[in-house]
């Protein structure tokens, strides 16, 4: 328990509580439960993507193509919806996940089998995926009236007081917490990123593990693609433009180390919530929304500094007194 309290997640929770306190002082209506739930719902896409990105970063990679994946998948399912409005939403969801998975696998194969550095691969696929959206639609938008009602309404549908979108985020958090802590694959992500050399000795195929990380990231991005276009009831080329960096920012703030091997699903969740609260609170507290970018930037830098301090290896422990003092 004491370990939990001293951890970076605890620090982050304190920071979020502090943030909410400041906001509440200026605008008490922000912290009423219904509003907080609305903020959570609004942040759900970021939470989802942050979980996927966390897994990728854990394995010492990075996925800059998530937003483009989201946009492309969102467009693809929108077009399917136009062509076949009667298709039940559950199939749409499956197609979204499947298509996103394929896109993720493309990234994964290039990293695994061709050993191309992830930043280069995803820089490339980022532009390629978005370009494909244009090729599919010649730049035309898919608007709300072209989407079927069920397509748009499912994520908003209320279930026990929360929209389905929120429930999906919660379910994903729970699912991946279990996967990361209690499955061999989950532990392999940590091992492959924490010490790739040792991981090989332990029988873990580092490249393959990275492949699975990109696959999962792609699957989540695909799912979020449907949720996003449905929620905003529009699909076009520039959907979520630049969002990939917000996702990485959420991970960094959440304590995921860019060097790999360190990070938790809970941390990614907190990092996403932190950014989500800022985004929602600014207009309400009369701080110009134009400050959002600068505040996010500042938060990222502070998070990096704090996490670097926490992750610092204490140096070889040779003096006996130093070891027992711990």
């Amino acid at each position, binding site marked *: 328990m004491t370990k939990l309290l001293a951890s970076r997640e605890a620090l982050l929770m304190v920071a979020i509580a502090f943030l909410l306190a400041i906001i509440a002082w200026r605008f008490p209506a922000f912290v009423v439960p219904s509003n907080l739930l609305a903020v959570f719902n609004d942040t759900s896409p970021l939470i989802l993507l942050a979980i996927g990105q966390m897994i990728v970063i854990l394995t010492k990679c990075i996925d800059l193509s998530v937003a483009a994946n989201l946009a492309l998948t969102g467009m693809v399912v929108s077009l399917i919806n136009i062509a076949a409005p009667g298709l039940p939403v559950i199939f749409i969801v499956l197609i979204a996940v499947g298509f996103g998975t394929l896109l993720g696998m493309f990234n994964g194969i290039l990293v695994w089998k061709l050993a191309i550095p992830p930043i280069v691969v995803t820089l490339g696929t980022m532009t390629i995926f978005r370009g494909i959206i244009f090729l599919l639609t010649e730049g035309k938008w898919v608007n709300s009236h072209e989407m079927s009602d069920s397509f748009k309404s499912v994520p908003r549908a209320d279930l026990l007081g929360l929209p389905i979108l929120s429930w999906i985020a919660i379910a994903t958090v729970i699912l991946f917490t279990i996967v990361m802590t209690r499955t061999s694959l989950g532990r392999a992500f940590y091992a492959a990123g924490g010490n790739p050399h040792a991981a090989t000795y332990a029988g873990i195929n580092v490249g393959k593990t990275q492949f699975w990380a990109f696959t999962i990231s792609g699957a989540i991005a695909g799912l979020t693609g449907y949720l996003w276009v449905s929620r905003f009831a529009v699909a076009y080329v520039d959907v979520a433009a630049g969002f990939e960096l917000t996702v990485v*920012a959420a991970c960094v703030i959440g304590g995921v180390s860019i060097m790999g091997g360190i990070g938790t699903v809970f941390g990614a969740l907190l990092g996403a919530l932190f950014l989500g609260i800022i985004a929602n609170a600014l207009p309400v507290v009369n701080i110009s929304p134009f400050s959002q970018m*600068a505040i996010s930037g500042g938060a990222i830098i502070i998070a990096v500094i704090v996490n670097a301090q926490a992750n610092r290896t204490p140096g070889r422990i040779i003096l006996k007194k130093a070891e027992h003092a711990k």
Partner: protein
Amino acid sequence: MNTRSIPDRLQSSLERKLKSWESLLMLVAIGIFVANSFASPYFLNAWNLSDATYNFTEKAMIAFAMALLIISGEIDLSVASIIALASTAMGAAVQMGVGAEGLVLIGLATGLVCGAFNGILVTGLGLPSIVVTIGTMSLFRGISFIILGDQAYRGYPSDFAFFGQGYVWWVISFEFVLFAIIALIYGVILHMTNFGRAVYAIGNNPTGALFSGIRVGRVKFILFLLTGLMSGIAAVCLTSRLGSTRPSIATGWELEIVTMVVLGGVNILGGSGSIPGVVIAAFVMGLVTFGLGLLNVPGIVMSIVIGGLLIGVIALPRLWTMWRTR
């Protein structure tokens, strides 16, 4: 005692050059040039070609500094945001009646200060540059947004326009000349000085370089300063060319610049690369953009080509080696 002496070199310099990445890229560049001249009658027009250079000169100036930084093992994703902040600073100065020379100084100074800020965080605090500069990317542009909101600064003095719109001789623009001079300077620095040797050493093995007495921190700090300075110079050129400033100026440029560097043969992981390679890559990207533009291909589709080129130039040699060693 054996007096057999060791030769200095085994392979002549020329031999080595011919087999290199730069040669391959040069072939690609020539190929694109030829293809373009067949594809459009407007291509082989001196003024059009000169206009085409604006596509890449500003980005290339930054790419040279970025190349050195990446060779040393770091990266700076905040360069486009530095342009925005420098441009905003210049715009604010214009409102206060500052003349062209003053504006240039302010642009350069802003770039230097931003570069120093990045440099201190990375070398002073030992933070990973990729996440630090994702943070400063938001911070710098965010500050621009705070200052300028969704407005624009105009009213630049007429002599200020020379930097971005002026010509030195016939079709040769000032920007092109500046680009050429900067290319030359960086080429000399990287390939002919002690400093350049240190950059390669650090990129290949930062620990080994440190243990050999190289002041790694100081070298990296200077590289961040240079990147900031180049961004400032590019800001002057770009602002002068557009005649106005918006906080959204140069959005997405950081990734295009990284693409230019990697396309130029610089290993994203550090340790190798050359300035001539980046020069050729700049031309390749400019030719592709210009050529496709003449064919009325939309920008976003051009990105597909660039993204494909980026992955292709790294993947194809590896696929080739894999095929040969079957």
